[in-house]
């Protein structure tokens, strides 16, 4: 596993002992089976994670109480080679509802010829989250800006108790 990246992106890759079709399927439809359990933004207990397998679909967490949190849009779905999803999660790990303030994750699956698959992941456009926060400070005059800022601030205060 190796990690490199430009200022506004994070890249990493890993070789898995599986065919691209299997790797792609597990990454997408099977996302709930490997996604780190402590990284859900749902308030309640997680029941399942649903990946809608098509461009224009979405990814959402469903809680045991029936609540849903759609935290990603599927931007490209090209089995078994490539998938691109949006990252609608803010820097404080909360749902980001403004698409202009979201980043995206591209994952490519390449057969290595020996039955293994190279999985390359790039999470890019991170500056959009940053600009969101800086822009928020600039937008003091706009009610939307303030409201958003105060909500984010209140969310962090609440989380700090």
């Amino acid at each position, binding site marked *: *596993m190796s990690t490199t990246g430009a200022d506004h992106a994070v890249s990493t890759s*890993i070789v898995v002992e599986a065919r691209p079709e299997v790797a792609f399927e597990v990454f997408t439809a*099977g996302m709930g089976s*490997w996604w*780190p359990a402590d990284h859900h933004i749902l308030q309640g207990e997680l029941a399942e994670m649903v990946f809608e397998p098509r461009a224009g679909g979405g990814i959402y967490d469903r809680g045991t109480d029936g609540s849903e949190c759609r935290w990603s849009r599927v931007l490209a779905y090209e089995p078994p080679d490539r998938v691109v999803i949006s990252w609608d999660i803010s820097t404080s790990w909360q749902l980001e509802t403004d698409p202009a303030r979201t980043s995206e994750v591209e994952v490519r699956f390449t057969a290595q010829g020996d039955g293994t698959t190279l999985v390359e992941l790039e999470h890019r456009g*991170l500056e959009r989250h940053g600009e969101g926060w800086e822009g928020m400070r600039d937008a003091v005059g706009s009610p939307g800006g303030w409201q958003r800022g105060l909500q984010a601030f209140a969310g962090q205060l609440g989380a700090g108790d």
Partner: protein
Amino acid sequence: MLAYQERAFDALGDPTRRDIFERLVLRPKAVGELASEMPVSRPAVSQHLRVLKGAGLVTDRPAGNRRIYQVDPTGLSALRASLDHFWNQALASFKVAAEEIERESR
């Protein structure tokens, strides 16, 4: 900018500091809280927090007679460092899951 980011990555080179940073990614916490859940003394936690703050990874604010530390939400360095850690952890877990399905389907 680059020097700043190198400092952020250097600061996370220490396993205890990385552990503290990851705990703060999940939730803002006070020094005492961190010290109580880790095998590290309170002064040592404070020292680590100073380094993380100097690297632009965390910020602090007063809350009564305590200080609450949290990952700096305006810091791109902090965002990159936390996502970098997140994806490496996630892909390692993904690898295990994919290889298990592959073995089962053979």
